[in-house]
């Protein structure tokens, strides 16, 4: 039986792993190759490297990072961040990446998914979707302004607070829209429909991030994960919000995710990958241990 996957995600900026909350307030979490090797040794099933500086132009540094990871890590890894062309995807795959994720570029040019899938096979093309509830888009902007003006992590809009969680996940419409450019722009595109379209075009996997949950450690957005998992036949990686071991179980069992991605809880050593797998195995989830 196919094992459910545990995937640590390494957001890379200027050759360092960083992690924020709602894509903001970045904290340094270490050297990408060192951290990747540690996760691999600890039993991670895959790694995801997202170059969060590369949206504007393709950077040579990410190719060098991919080469360096590929020399040291012998599990699959996906690389994402600002790639626009099939040639760039080709370069990353040739440098040792197993898969490439596309986000903003695919929204602008959906044919990129089809072109890459036909050339490299569907399994190489990961469609990354950053989603947030339509009704919360305005709130989110206010939260950001609030954070910036206060310069404080603990404000009224503290994402860890129960009030905020309710506001984020209690949305009655259950509609999510796609955000691009590292979450800074909303598109008005329905996230579930975009996932279905991505599958039709040839994406082999959906990396689904709830922007409201990202970095909060308050749990994955199960409704969003389930809505997308039910709508597509390709694997869905749940992302954003992992804080406790139960959250992983919920994303897999209630959300229907094939894989769970996490950053904060592994980078800052709340849990090791081994602990996560032992926990899931103890609750009857097939894992590779």
């Amino acid at each position, binding site marked *: 039986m196919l094992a459910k996957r545990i995937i640590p995600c390494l957001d890379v900026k200027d050759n360092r792993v960083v992690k924020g909350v709602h894509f903001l307030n970045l904290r340094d979490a270490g050297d990408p190759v060192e951290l990747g090797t540690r996760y691999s040794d600890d039993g991670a099933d895959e790694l995801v490297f997202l170059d969060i500086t590369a949206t504007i132009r393709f950077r040579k540094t990410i190719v060098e990072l991919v080469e360096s990871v590929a*020399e040291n890590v*012998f599990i699959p890894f996906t690389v994402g961040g600002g790639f626009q062309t099939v040639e760039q995807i080709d370069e990353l*795959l040739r440098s*040792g990446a*197993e898969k490439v994720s596309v986000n903003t570029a695919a929204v602008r040019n959906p044919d990129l998914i089809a072109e890459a899938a036909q*050339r490299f096979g569907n399994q190489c093309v990961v469609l990354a979707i950053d989603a947030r509830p339509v009704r919360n888009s305005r709130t989110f902007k206010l939260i950001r302004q609030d954070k910036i003006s206060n310069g404080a992590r603990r404000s009224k809009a503290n994402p860890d607070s129960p009030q905020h969680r309710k506001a984020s996940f209690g949305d009655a419409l259950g509609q999510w829209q796609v955000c691009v450019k590292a979450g800074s722009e909303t598109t008005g595109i329905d996230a579930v429909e975009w996932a279905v379209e991505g599958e039709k075009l040839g994406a082999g996997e959906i990396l689904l991030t709830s922007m409201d949950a990202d970095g909060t450690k308050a749990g994955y957005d199960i409704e969003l994960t389930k809505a997308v998992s039910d709508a597509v036949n390709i694997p869905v990686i749940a992302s954003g919000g992992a804080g406790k071991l139960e959250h992983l179980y919920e994303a897999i069992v209630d959300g229907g995710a094939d894989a769970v991605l996490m950053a904060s809880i592994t980078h800052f050593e709340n849990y090791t990958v081994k602990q996560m797998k032992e926990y899931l195995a103890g609750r009857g989830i097939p894992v590779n241990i």
Partner: protein
Amino acid sequence: MIVVIDYNVGNVRSVCNAFRHIGCDANLSCEPSDIESSAGLVLPGVAAFGYAVSALGTLAELIKKLTLSGKPLLGICVGYQILFDESSEYGQHNGLGLVSGRVVPLPAGRTVPHMGWNLVKLPEDMDLFGGLGKEKHFYFAHSFYADVTDSQAKIAYTDYGFDFPASVQKGNIYGTQFHPEKSSKSGLKVLKNFAQICEGTNS
């Protein structure tokens, strides 16, 4: 020296990295002279079937000739699939025909691609799996699989709602649908075993 055939498809570097990591001499090359003088060949592949076959071009005939005269060959993923007769991925394409069988889509009713770590039952008489025990997880990422009809092929199966071939061995021809170079310690052991097969053949 093992030659990893560089035919302009993805993931070729990873295979070389993995061989080097375990102390095996492996080089990327598309030069016929390197291919002819190699101890063994690896046909890697992250690509669609049709693209891979056309990218291989005239090297296909050379690989077939050398393999049929006894040189060990390991096909990985699409490099494994093109060992067979034909595939229906994005149109009909002919493969190398070294092992009888057709490459067909994974049947409906399951998540496709088959992506991730699945348990492979390892027959004792398959040389690639020496020292690995009865079963191990390996990393898969594919939407098509080989329906093997070759009576001379030994087959290792994995279960994805139905049993399908994860690896074949027919004489000196080896193939894995999974990626040994991305399957951590178990995968590196498979590559080590292949390197030893190559050494044995040439000593």
